[in-house]
């Protein structure tokens, strides 16, 4: 609008069921078998994981996985990411095409992303949010080799009665040192969802980790 005052454009609604316009480059790999109920089950797994740091949860399985993604990471993405979220994804072209098709999320630099799945992205390089808006802190989806309860790291903090043990195989070098720095800036900070196969465990920013 040139000389008009601002604000006179509107949203167009459709009375019939919506049509989606996926990105140009398609994928042959499917999403959830049941997009509504699998997403709900996926969310409950992530919610449980985030509420009870270090407890291992199982996500709903996809009929077929695109190469480059673990079952857990794929389910977490489908559950939480869509056209309204900014993501940073580095998992190979097939996985990226799959995410573009099923989630439609715009790709941005790691430091500007709400969700990050990129082995090269350091915990401390991501958006920690601000003191007034700590909820803007990013979520890092981190693929590891294995997750096992009852041994390993000793976790304490909200969500944990006394302490909880989680053994993480294949965490990036220097992760615990970075984590201590991340935790020290709470309520700002990054939350992590660890993925291995179809298992997830979460590390909300408030959790303290001691090496086991």
């Amino acid at each position, binding site marked *: *609008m*040139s*000389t*008009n*005052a*601002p*604000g*006179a*454009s*509107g*949203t*167009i*609604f*459709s*009375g*019939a*069921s*919506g*049509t989606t*316009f996926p990105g140009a480059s398609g994928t042959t790999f499917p999403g959830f078998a049941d997009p509504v109920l699998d997403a709900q089950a996926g969310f409950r797994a992530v919610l449980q994981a985030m509420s009870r740091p270090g407890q291992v949860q199982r996500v709903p399985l996809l009929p077929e996985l695109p190469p480059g993604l673990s079952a857990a990471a794929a389910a977490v993405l489908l559950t939480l990411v869509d056209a309204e979220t900014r993501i940073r994804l580095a998992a190979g072209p097939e996985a990226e095409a799959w995410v573009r098709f099923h989630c439609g999320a715009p790709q941005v630099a790691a430091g500007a992303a709400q969700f990050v799945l990129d082995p090269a992205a350091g915990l401390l390089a991501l958006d920690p949010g601000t003191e007034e808006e700590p909820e803007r802190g990013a979520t890092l989806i981190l693929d590891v080799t294995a997750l096992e309860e009852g041994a390993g790291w000793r976790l304490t903090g909200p969500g944990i009665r006394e302490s909880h043990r989680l053994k993480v195989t294949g965490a990036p070098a220097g992760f615990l040192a970075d984590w201590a720095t991340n935790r020290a800036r709470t309520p700002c900070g990054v939350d992590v969802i660890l993925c291995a196969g179809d298992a997830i465990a979460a590390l909300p920013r408030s959790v303290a980790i001691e090496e086991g």
Partner: protein
Amino acid sequence: MYVATKGGERAIGAAHAWLDETGRGDPALPELTADQVQAQLGLAVDRVMAEGSCHDRGLAALAVKQSRGDLIEAAFLLRAYRTTLPRFGASAPLDTNAMAIQRRISATYKDLPGGQVLGPTFDYTHRLLDFRLAAAGQLPSGAPEAEANNEPTPRVTEMLAREGLMQREAESEAEPGDLTREPLSFPADRALRLQALARGDEGFLLSLGYSTQRGYGGNHPFVGEIRMGEVAVGFTPPELGFEIDLGDITVTECQMVNQFKGSRTEPPQFTRGYGLVFGHGERKAMSMALVDRALRASELGEAAEAPAQQQEFVLSHCDNVEATGFVEHLKLPHYVDFQSELENVRTMRASVEAAK
């Protein structure tokens, strides 16, 4: 012995049945149709579309019928329906410059290009109850017709702007925010403020606008122009890549011309208060323009002390669907909290008695 009351579900069912029966009224009288509401209570329909934030005359008329003429309830029905609709995308900005004019008046000039058009207005009617309307069956005698005036009707504010006397609005290609998707945070920019006001309650904005005229944050407003008529809605579907015309809607636009004394960076000039609403909603468009201008106080370096100038106050309270819900929720049971207040007051009274 005391038994706790049960039967909430049955009571609700019975209340709803009673509501339906009362809404229908005397069954000996013909039922009002939504079409009749749409045609004959058009201003109620327009108000419901504006405050319901959804342009659909048929649905708004249905909402008026269903709500028994309670227009806030009708706006609520329309909003709740709107929120379930999938979104195609955003229209192109309306070009009200190209409006097919039904009414166009300016208070700042005696005459102007395009002329003054009174249109269908109550303005100069004598407010005498017309008892002929009490007896149905009479058609109005019909308005005289004239050739459509295809002369362009340039905006008063634009003519002032060309002379350098009216502040131009900053142009922006940025996507405006949408308070129905993202919660408002303060300070809110002008596009978001206008969105909130366009959905806001006519009565609330009317009173706030009135307060600015009575000295609570006024800026010597003149009606630069009010225009009402049809504008085209354009939309570019992503799969087509070019703009198509979805149809025409009726809107009312008001541009208030307000004084501005100037600042260190800007010379003295007029500033604009802007109002735009669905349908024929002149009172609302004018009130909106007054409040829009009042809310610009801070950006124009004016003291912002009056209620109409405080954006958090105005924007947090202008939505009548929110307001009515929260005011009316007081009729829900609160006996648990009341009980703790009872015990609290009893304890305090006991300690006052003991201290005597």
